[in-house]
């Protein structure tokens, strides 16, 4: 894969040994298989594949962290494009709310991409390590604390009002997204994290819509998935133009994530969530150490 010979600006160091001391593991097949696992894992946990793909590509497979982030963003877009039509067709994804939040999220994606291109890869590794620890801690809390779902307030005034049909019961659920300003601010932050670190931003979008804006969780997750494509597109353009986006890495990543996510979605009803969360915590801890080592090296 001699893409560096024709792709101007492609960073040196592609395929160096991983920071965990792993042997030099390169190759399309390996990236494809790793992305399948990451996509399946991310889908099972509802956090997307990026948070696993980026450290996997950089820590284990030895790719430059910016190249890993750029490839992950293409995977995020591909997964969103593959999943969104179903959610839009079913009427569960709230496109109008999504468009409103996307204005801030895409600006965040752009600034995140620009910030990442000006930051040293080691700083990005440090930030990603911190993100991994934060998500792992959140996963542990969700495993230990079972919070009763708080009832949604009755449809009132202001905000985005809409309804959807709950597929499990056939019941028409009416809701009203409120706190639009705070929601937009959080979406900007989610877009920024997405562009900066190559993750989907769902880890911020979903709780923002569900907890802060009082949107039903099913609408929040589907609307977030719909938003991811445009958010990631805003930042991936920056990576592409600056020469950080390697299509030959993005191709197996996107394919692997799509296949893995579909398998993960099918398995999600069979695999205990607590076991998955604990497994993620272990994997995240290992990758976080790898990222911190990359920062320190």
């Amino acid at each position: 894969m001699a893409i560096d010979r024709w792709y101007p600006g492609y960073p040196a160091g592609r395929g160096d040994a991983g920071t965990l001391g792993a042997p030099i593991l390169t190759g399309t097949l390996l990236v494809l298989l790793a992305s399948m696992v990451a996509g399946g894992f991310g889908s099972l946990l509802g956090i997307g594949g990026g948070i696993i793909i980026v450290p996997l590509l950089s820590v284990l497979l030895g790719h430059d962290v910016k190249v890993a982030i750029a490839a992950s963003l293409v995977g995020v877009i591909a997964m969103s494009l593959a999943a969104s039509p179903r959610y839009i067709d079913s009427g569960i994804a709230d496109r109008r709310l999504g468009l409103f939040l996307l204005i801030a999220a895409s600006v965040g994606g752009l600034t995140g991409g620009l910030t990442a291109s000006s930051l040293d890869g080691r700083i990005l590794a440090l930030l990603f390590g911190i993100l991994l620890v934060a998500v792992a801690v959140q996963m542990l809390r969700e495993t230990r604390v079972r919070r009763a779902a708080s009832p949604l307030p009755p449809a009132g005034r202001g905000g985005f009002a809409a309804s959807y049909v709950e597929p499990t019961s056939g019941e028409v659920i009416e809701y009203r997204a409120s706190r639009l300003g705070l929601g937009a601010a959080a979406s900007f932050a989610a877009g920024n994290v997405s562009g900066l670190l190559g993750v989907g931003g769902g880890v911020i979008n979903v709780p923002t819509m569900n907890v802060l804006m009082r949107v039903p969780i099913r609408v929040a997750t589907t609307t977030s998935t719909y938003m991811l494509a445009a958010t990631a597109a805003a930042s991936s353009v920056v990576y592409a133009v600056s020469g950080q986006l390697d299509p030959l890495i993005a191709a197996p990543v996107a394919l692997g994530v799509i296949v893995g996510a579909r398998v993960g979605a099918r398995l999600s009803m069979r695999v205990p969530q607590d076991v998955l969360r604990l497994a993620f915590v272990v994997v995240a801890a290992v990758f976080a150490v790898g990222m911190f080592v990359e920062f320190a090296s």
Partner: protein
Amino acid sequence: VTGRAVDDGLDDGPVEQSGRVAPRRATTLTLTAGALVGAACFTVAVVADLAGLDGQDATGTVDAAGLVSALVALRAWAWALLGTVAIITTPAVGLGVTAFEYNAIADRRAVLMALAVLAVLGISLLVALLA
């Protein structure tokens, strides 16, 4: 029965249960087509790469003619590039289609929101080129 947006009510004004439902067929078709084209290109790229057709002869900046000949020669990098372009541009095309769909039901606010996001994507490209 499908879900529907009934009002946006950005202020605290009265809710109008207008019941307008924007068509969504064109958007879903656009997104699906983009995903399929991207996945197909990536599949060709991965298979070609595994087969050793990795574009070792490609040097320097690639022009349109070089890209076409590389696609015909089943070069992995060319198909990966085509797939990447398809995937990255599809959200923008989808937003344009969405704007048309909301325009069909005269939902001006939704049209403006879709166009605003589209504008941000355009600015992203512009800023990236200038940076």
